[in-house]
């Protein structure tokens, strides 16, 4: 999943970005409201983390514009404003969650994960396809009861494909949601990553294929027959 964080304080932006990346998310960071708003126009994010008091453009204004444009991306307000009135005003404006500074990084990650699931209408943190199970909360993958070790980016790729189970996902969409702006993926990076992922989740010759290729269109995760 791809996350955007718009926060003017580097002291908060940097560790949050690192934590999100370490948890397997593709992360873009903006340090002022104008840049953040521009990035929401350029990319389709799964979750947006917004500070309220931002130079350039206020966080509430960004949210208002997003909702006015029909963009339903889950938004989490991350702010020092902790008054009930501020929280209520933020939620009424269309924010999906509200976290006040200071916060535990684990709590932020948990909230981001919940918001990510909400976007794909999933209530459980378990994504299942056949005997393959991906636990979004524990960040683990098991197949046939055996744990599969995946690097963060492969984990994110599998998570995204499982979230879109039954739907063909194009290479562009994968690039958009798995790689952040700094990754600059080459055209064959997605194919190589999918190939590596297939190998990683194929534990034996009996393991049924889960990720299928649709030529010229992309990839799809299907329940094994």
């Amino acid at each position: 999943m791809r996350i955007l964080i718009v926060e003017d304080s580097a002291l908060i932006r940097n560790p949050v970005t690192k934590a999100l990346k370490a948890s397997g998310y593709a992360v873009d960071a903006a340090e002022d409201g104008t840049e953040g708003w521009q990035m929401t126009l350029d990319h389709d994010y799964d979750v947006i983390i917004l500070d309220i008091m931002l130079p350039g453009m206020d966080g509430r204004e960004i949210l208002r514009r997003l909702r006015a444009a029909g963009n339903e991306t889950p938004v989490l307000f991350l702010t020092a404003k902790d008054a009930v009135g501020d929280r209520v005003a933020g939620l009424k404006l269309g924010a999906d969650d509200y976290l006040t500074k200071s916060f535990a990084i684990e709590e932020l990650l948990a909230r981001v994960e919940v918001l990510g699931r909400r976007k794909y209408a999933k209530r459980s943190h378990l994504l299942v396809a056949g005997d393959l199970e991906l636990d979004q909360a524990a960040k683990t993958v098991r197949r046939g009861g055996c744990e599969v070790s995946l690097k963060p980016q492969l984990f994110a790729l599998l998570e995204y494909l499982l979230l879109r189970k039954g739907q063909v996902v194009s290479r562009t969409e994968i690039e958009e949601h798995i790689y952040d702006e700094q990754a600059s993926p080459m055209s064959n990076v997605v194919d190589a990553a999918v190939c590596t992922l297939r190998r990683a989740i194929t534990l034996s010759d009996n393991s049924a294929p889960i990720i299928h290729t649709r030529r010229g269109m992309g990839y799809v995760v299907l329940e094994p027959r």
Partner: protein
Amino acid sequence: MKSIRAQLLGWLLPGFAVVCASASLGVYYWGKQAIEADLDARLGRLSGSARLALRNQMTAGGGGTRTPGLRAFLAKEEFQSSGQYFELWTVAGSTERRSPNLGDADLPRPTVLARDAVRYDGTLNSGDRVRISAMQFPQGGGMPPLEFAVAISRSEGEARLSRLLRDLAIGAVGCCAVLCLLQVLALRHAMRPLGQVGEQAAAMEAGSLHERFALEDMPLEVVPIVERLNDLMARREEGFERERQFSSYLAHELRTPLAGIRSTSEVAAKWPDQSSPDDFRLIAQAAARLQQTVESLLILSRLETSSADITIEVVALRPIIEECLALHSGRAEQRDLKFATQLERSPTLETDPRLLRIVVTNLIANATEYAPLGSEIVIAATDTDPFLRVGNLAPDLTPDDILRLFDRLWRKDATRSDAAHTGLGLSIARSCALALGFTLTAELDGGGVIEMSLCREK
């Protein structure tokens, strides 16, 4: 606790009772006088009739037995039963004739009688209280004067007087009761606006400070109080708003660096490979910013609780200004600013040099940080008030900003993204000035120049 209504009733109700009683007594006295006058008038008429009867008698009888004229006079109905009485005395003082209704009783007789009537009160044996008129009636022919008396019973007048007294008592009590009721109702009506103000004031809390007391239908006497209350409410609301704003600013000033320190250290602990020396530099910066904020707040707190240790000395202002200018010259150079000083008439003050230095350095620091790049900062010191002026261009400031300029943690930049400043410098400067007995004010002229003025407090 005293109630206005109870006090008014306490004064007015007895007052009304006294007024009603006095009025009743007055009417009673007037009535009594009228009855007495009526009685005397009747007595006069009766005396006249008696004299006439005696004269006729004398004419008829020729000085003999005075029977026919007097008989006709005494045959009147009034002399048969109680009401009017007549008695004629001989020269020797014995009774010669009396009206039948006297029976054997006599009218009280004065010792000396004259031609002019003597009037007095008496009581008959029957207990009937009477008003008597006695006089001499001269007889011709060398005869000694006749002496007689007529009397009229007081019972009718007294009965009228009793009725009047009873009517007056009933009237006074009734009038008093009606007036009291009217008073209670009038007070209740008149006091209702005050009661409403009291109820509204009692229901006031921090969340309802935006409400105001209605001036419509308010008695004129209460309007100044209500206006004052509304004024106080407005100030209180402004104070609460400033406190709320201060809390919000403080939350941001403290929480943002704290959140940064916490997040950076948590990430470094969980993903050590992700941490870098930059993280520690940022943590150190955040800690320094927190320290600066907390120390500034402590200074303000000490100044505002009058616990600042003030040592008064004779201080020359000019060296302090020059010292502070030197301190900020580096920053001024970075921002291409020019200091224009007018310090020739700089005064000598009896004040605390340490606090004065804090005021001056904060004023110059503020100008150095916020004056537009390449502009000029004017610092003028004179021996008349204001004894120090610091002026610089401030194109972004509005007159509304000037009102908030000295608020704790206020910053023009609402996003507060500039981590180098906390927004406490001018608050500290003003508090120091107050502690020294000076006033620090800011003024924005039409040309966008802000001037800070320091005066000896008037």
